């Protein structure tokens, strides 16, 4: 508080000689976490990240990739059987005509949202710790969208008519029903997938140029050519960086409303209907929070093993893990709050159908699913309050798996319990998935993992240029050398700004 008192007395002392207050009152320098530990140099970062790509393919990679491809074959088999036979091979039957397909779709698309949160929202909020995880998280987003898209596309049954989802002129002269949230979803998800790929690619251009030049001088002309084509002739020109940084900022600026709108529109698929348990205004914010919660669960699940395998402890520090755990805690708490508010509103609305839907969720035939959801989503994240839990990397990884499981069950509970017990008891039913459905969903983890492993092997795992920019040596004014208490790039620059 010394600064405040000083400021209060300063005007009287310096009234005669100009704005001395500003010179005397210095903003407090808060200690900032070090984002790259052990004073690593620029070239150390280049060697570390490029080394993953340039080195020999590790044995564990082949083992994991083979397993992932084997698991992915379950999806291929399940979908082939579905296309050859008909959509009836899934366990859908009245009254539950929407089940695992949409559960899995929302599950995967939700996972993707943490990638965009990290790359876009944290960029706008100037959270510099995002730099070491944003590339991998964006890759996760894209592969999650790929897995998500499988389900609605194949649920149309006759997959060769899937293009009817888009407004392409057809011989029936029938256009899409733009009054339906399902059609909004087509635009939301396809825009989301496209913009995520573009954002990911643009962020990678400078790093691809680094790889191009390294492969060229190492004598790998073909690899240099391939990376070079995608590097677009990037040469590190500051005139280019100026436009590039602006473009990146705009992409972050538009991805933020995009990611919020995508899960809002996904929630409209339910909220705009009249089914008790779906028809609630809380759905958009509740779905967005849940999506980010599940996505951070998946980010932790992926990043922690990579950190251990590639020895990235200097780049993904305990501070990064703390930040991710705290976001998981915050969004998990929002999700828990949403669960309780749903119950409150069901009672407060005095709507008997709505009230029944929620009592039935907690104590009906699907109560087991509900309590799995509550334990994984409400109780698990609360453990992240403890520093000891956050410091235990293995435990964090296990808890992140619980978050993934819990968020899958959340979608299952919302979708299946509401449909299985609607207005008329005569139409009630109990839904169980078929083997084909289970295989198809199980296989998507293989699809996701094999794509992610390919990314780890062939593309820079972390944005090298951005990482260099957050080291103390990147500061143009050079007053940060040896000052480990502060993050150089984020420190104030009083002389030039």
């Amino acid at each position, binding site marked *: 508080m010394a600064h405040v008192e000083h400021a209060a007395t300063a005007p009287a002392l310096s009234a005669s000689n100009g704005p001395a207050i500003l010179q005397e009152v210095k903003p407090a320098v808060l200690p900032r976490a070090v984002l790259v530990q052990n004073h690593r140099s*620029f*070239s150390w970062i*280049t060697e570390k990240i490029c080394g993953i790509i340039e080195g020999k393919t590790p044995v564990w990679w082949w083992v994991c990739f083979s397993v992932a491809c084997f698991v992915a074959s379950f999806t291929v088999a399940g979908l082939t059987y579905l296309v050859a036979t008909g959509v009836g091979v899934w366990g859908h039957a009245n009254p539950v005509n929407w089940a695992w397909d949409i559960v899995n779709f929302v599950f995967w698309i939700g996972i993707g949202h943490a990638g965009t949160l990290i790359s876009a929202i944290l960029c706008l909020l100037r959270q510099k710790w995002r730099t070491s995880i944003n590339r991998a998280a964006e890759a996760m987003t894209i592969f999650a969208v790929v897995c998500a898209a499988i389900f609605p596309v194949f649920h149309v049954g006759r997959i060769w008519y899937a293009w009817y989802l888009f*407004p392409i002129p057809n011989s029936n*002269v*029938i*256009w*899409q*029903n*733009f*009054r339906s*949230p399902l059609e*909004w979803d087509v*635009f939301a998800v396809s*825009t989301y997938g*496209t*913009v995520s790929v*573009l954002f990911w690619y*643009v962020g990678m251009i400078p790093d691809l*140029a*680094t790889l191009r*030049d*390294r492969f060229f001088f190492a004598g790998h002309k073909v690899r240099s050519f391939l990376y*070079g084509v995608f590097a*677009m*002739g*990037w*040469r*590190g*020109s*500051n*005139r*280019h*960086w*100026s*436009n*590039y*940084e*602006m*473009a990146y900022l*705009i992409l972050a600026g*538009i991805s933020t*409303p*995009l990611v919020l*709108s995508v899960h809002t*529109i996904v929630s*409209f698929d339910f909220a705009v209907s009249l089914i008790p348990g779906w028809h609630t205004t809380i759905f958009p914010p509740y779905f967005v929070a849940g999506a980010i919660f599940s996505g951070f669960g998946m980010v932790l699940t992926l990043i922690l093993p990579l950190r251990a395998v590639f020895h990235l402890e200097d780049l993904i520090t305990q501070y990064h893990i703390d930040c991710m755990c705290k976001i998981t805690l915050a969004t998990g708490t929002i999700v828990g709050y949403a669960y309780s508010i749903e119950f409150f509103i069901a009672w407060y609305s005095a709507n008997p159908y709505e009230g029944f839907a929620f009592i039935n969720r907690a104590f009906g035939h699907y109560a087991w699913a509900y309590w799995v959801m509550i334990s994984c989503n409400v109780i698990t994240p609360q453990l992240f309050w403890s520093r000891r839990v956050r410091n235990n990397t293995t435990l964090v990884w296990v808890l992140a798996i619980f978050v993934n499981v819990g968020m899958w069950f959340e979608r299952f509970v919302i979708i299946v319990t509401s449909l299985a017990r609607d207005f008329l008891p005569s139409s009630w039913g109990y839904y169980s998935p078929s083997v084909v459905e289970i295989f198809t969903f199980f296989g998507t983890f293989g699809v996701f993992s094999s794509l992610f492993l390919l990314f780890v092997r062939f593309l820079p795992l972390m944005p*090298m*240029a*951005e990482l*260099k*920019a957050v080291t103390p040596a*990147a*500061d*143009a*004014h*050079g007053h940060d050398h040896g000052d480990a208490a502060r993050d150089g*790039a984020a420190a104030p*620059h009083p002389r*030039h700004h």
Partner: protein
Amino acid sequence: MAAQSFGLIATFDKTPDVYRAAEKVRDAGYRHWDVITPFPVHGLDKAMGLKRSIVPRISLAGGITGLVTGMTLVWWTGAVENPLIVGGKPMFSPIFAFPVSYELAILFTAFATIIGMFVVNGLPMHYHPVLKYDHIRRGMDDTFYIVIEARDPRFNLANTKALLAQAGGRDIQELEA
């Protein structure tokens, strides 16, 4: 002069060095020059005297085009080309057209931003003289360069070389065009 000269390139090892050197080159009044950095250096645009990027204007144009496209699509398909009554709802309303228009606005903004950034930067360009410099690989790694082009009206081999040396540049060499 046998091979035509593109200009001079000078090497700098530390961020503050290249920052101060950029201020000196700017103050000497050069127009056709550039700084090669492995990462975006905070404040270097100001040290080079660069104007604000025009990419946001291209983005805005893209966004407006997307929004108008979305509204037009929903209106033309639903109310003009083949009007069908669905659920007793109006043939067109900006309310239900909004989500699709909003997504298209974002999609078109993204494309406009990225294509705009490439066009303004003159990329892709795989044959730039700077890329032929022997040590340019370090410019994508940990070293900084200042390039002053020969076409600059103030360019004079001896004087420009002296300026770069005085600004702290080492290993000053001519670049082939």
